[in-house]
């Protein structure tokens, strides 16, 4: 096996190990609570009978390891357990919401990533010029705004004042695609503003960092046009940090998704998770948490593999 292939295989293996460890963390976090979770959840209303019920529901009466194995095998066969609050299967609760969330996040990523990469490259090209300073101040401001602030300002301006867009993004399984896109414009806009600023700033930084390197000075001394210096000489070398930045910032997208779903009453996983935290519906929270975490781990894995594959020093060995 070539060294490159073995590095990639190793990285993928590491990804799955991380996934396994994270699933264990999510599962065993319950045991961090000093005392009994069942009594804790019930609080004042605890009677020996209800406590025993909850303990059985949560599986606290069985050995932890055995429970964990059951949980994992369940997950792998599509059985996510049952909600503590209403006893319904979690798969049933979360199924449609999962699709909705993926759709919303995907839509936002598709808009924000190309936008922010372009802005980042433009800012690097015209660094210290007016256009760069404006983009920078705008981006610095945008990353400072809480998602819900952006959301409400957009609602105030585009819904209440202008009346163009709906303020609630209520969709269901049979909402047609056109209607679904129209209703999710505001959430996507909010997410784009929140994520694009981060990616743009770091893209610019990754390129500007390289501009001090001798081979960029060399490219300038070769009399190349400024855009060629950036696109042909700086960008390929900035690729690895940029890929990492993009993926790292999908974490902001996840945070954003949770808040935005609540603001716009969008029926996604984030909203379910927040509701369940309030109700201390631990099994639902664990399942949604594991979903978000594994998505993030997988994205990181893809980014790392892409970074390894994009490095000419690894691609073409001595």
């Amino acid at each position: 096996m070539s060294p490159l292939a073995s590095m990639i295989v190793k990285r993928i293996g590491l990804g799955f190990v991380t996934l396994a460890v994270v699933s264990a963390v999510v599962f065993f976090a319950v045991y961090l609570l000093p005392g009994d979770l069942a009594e804790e959840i019930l609080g004042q209303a605890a009677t020996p009978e209800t406590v025993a019920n909850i303990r059985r529901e949560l599986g606290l009466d069985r050995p932890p390891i055995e429970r964990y194995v059951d949980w994992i095998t369940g997950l792998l066969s599509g059985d996510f357990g049952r909600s503590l609050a209403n006893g319904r299967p979690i798969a049933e609760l979360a199924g449609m919401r999962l699709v909705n969330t993926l759709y919303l996040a995907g839509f936002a990523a598709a808009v924000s990533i190309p936008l922010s990469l372009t802005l980042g490259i433009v800012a690097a090209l015209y660094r210290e010029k007016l256009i760069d300073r404006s983009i920078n101040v705008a981006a610095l401001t945008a990353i400072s705004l809480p998602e819900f602030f952006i959301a409400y300002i957009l609602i105030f301006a585009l819904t209440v004042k202008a009346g163009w867009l709906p303020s609630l993004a209520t969709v269901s399984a049979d909402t047609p695609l056109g209607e679904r896109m129209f209703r999710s414009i505001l959430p996507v806009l909010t997410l784009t503003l929140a994520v694009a600023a981060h990616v743009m700033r770091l893209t610019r930084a990754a390129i500007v960092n390289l501009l001090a390197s001798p081979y960029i000075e060399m490219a300038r001394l070769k009399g190349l046009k400024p855009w060629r210096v950036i696109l042909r000489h700086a960008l390929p070398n900035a690729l690895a940090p940029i890929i990492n930045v993009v993926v790292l910032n999908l974490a902001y997208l996840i945070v954003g998704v949770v808040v935005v779903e609540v603001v716009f009453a969008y029926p996604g996983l984030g909203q379910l998770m927040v509701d369940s935290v309030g109700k201390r519906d631990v099994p639902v929270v664990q399942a949604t948490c594991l979903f978000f975490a594994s998505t993030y781990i997988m994205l990181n894995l893809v980014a790392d593999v892409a970074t390894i594959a994009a490095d000419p020093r690894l691609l073409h060995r001595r």
Partner: protein
Amino acid sequence: MTVPDTLLTMRGLAIEGRSERGTTQIVTGIDLNLKRGEVLGLIGESGAGKSTLGLAAMGYTRDGCRITAGSIVFDGIELTTAGDEARRRLRGSRIAYVAQSAAAAFNPAMRLIDQSVEIAVQHGVMNNAEAAAAAIALYRRMQLPSPEEIGFRYPHQVSGGQLQRAMTAMAMVARPDLIVFDEPTTALDVTTQIEVLAAIRDAVEAIGTSAIYISHDLALVAQMADRIMVLRHGRLVEEADTRTMMASPRQAYTKSLWAVRTFRGSRKPEMAAGTTPLLRVERLTAAYDETPVLQDVSLDLHRGRTVAVVGESGSGKSTLARVITGLLPPRQGSVAFEGKTLAGSYRGRSPEELRRVQMIVQMPDTALNPRQRVRDAIGRPLKFYLGLTGEARERRMRELLTEIELDPDQYVDRYPAELSGGQKQRVCIARALAAEPALLICDEITSALDQLVAEEMLKLLDRLQRERGLTYLFITHDLATVRAIADEVVVMKDGRIVEAGPRDRMFAPPHHPYTDLLLSSVPEMDPDWLDRLLDQRKAQAPS
């Protein structure tokens, strides 16, 4: 005013640099004339403004620098007033640049051939195929191995000396009128330097281009240039034909450039036989992770004497210092001090053992904590090892500063940033002396310093040795330094000792072949040295 065959003229050029600390004058009132086909040498120490001047010849200033006065006329074009676009068109196609470190100046993500053809193609001088053919022809002229294929490699797949040659070829593809060589061999080892130097000179002659050759080494420039300008602090010191300057330098500063080469340390009496060595290194083998860097190295250091370890980069000479001090525990072998074996790691050594062996390193900039005053740097070992406090410590500190020739009143409360490179190195010596050591390990301590400062440093060390009976382990790549101060010489290559013996024997033939190569590769202050050497090597080469 300009004669027809003049290619480049500078008049009263001044360049200013701006930083947080204010503005500094980098280049002041420089006049320069370069004829077509002429090679001009620019020589000076760090901070002389020679690179800034070289770049100015391309109408380029680095970020934070600004041309404040004067004119630069290239082939009738005034570069200081020409627009960005006009200057960009000249760069690469008519004025090309060869950087100090080709390894850093080649784009790591592009093949050599793609970078080589870029100038000609982007400036519309040639099409891709023509440029590629020209590049390959130049690779061949630069004596690169397999010129047809080497272009399809990435920079990291090619050695440093080859990269430097490829970069010269790249500069020549579009047939520029002028090439600026900015210390093109400084990053190379002395033995590699010769080949690159010869190839550059050959190619410059063959295509008949003008060149500005920048270097800190007068002996090197003398091999390349028709005429030499000596710069200091951004001003011209002296300008003359190469032969005139080498034969009869006028200015005191120019003469001082010979300084280290002529200095000789004091002679020591012959060693008494049968004494226990101060330090005995036996059969050391060491490695970083899996890479072996030292193999089976043994040597003895006797009290009051200087042993110089000489070798090129990668020879393991600095690793030897790290193993002796315990920063890198050896895989095998032992280090014994005054007959007693030391622990492999410094963690296992007693404060007393640590105190007796002190080390001074190459870069004075990183050797002193920027947040500690001179007082703290020297005072700490006095307290730590000798328990001195208050008045006693203050007095000792002043004695030490006086001993290294720095005025205590003026320097004791300064931060490292307020000292020059040479002063910092002196403080490092004082810090080492504060521990009252028996052995001083000096790892390339003059390499980062200018010639004059380096010579003063060697004189200081020589005096300290006489007064205090210190023993030195002197690690260096510079044979002139070895000649100046060593009693014994150890030559290293690829982690092994190649040859060892008293200085006089080592500098007289017959040599080990590697020692011979090393010795003959050191540029001499003679404009014909390179020619003679190349002829000699050609004659010796088995046909």
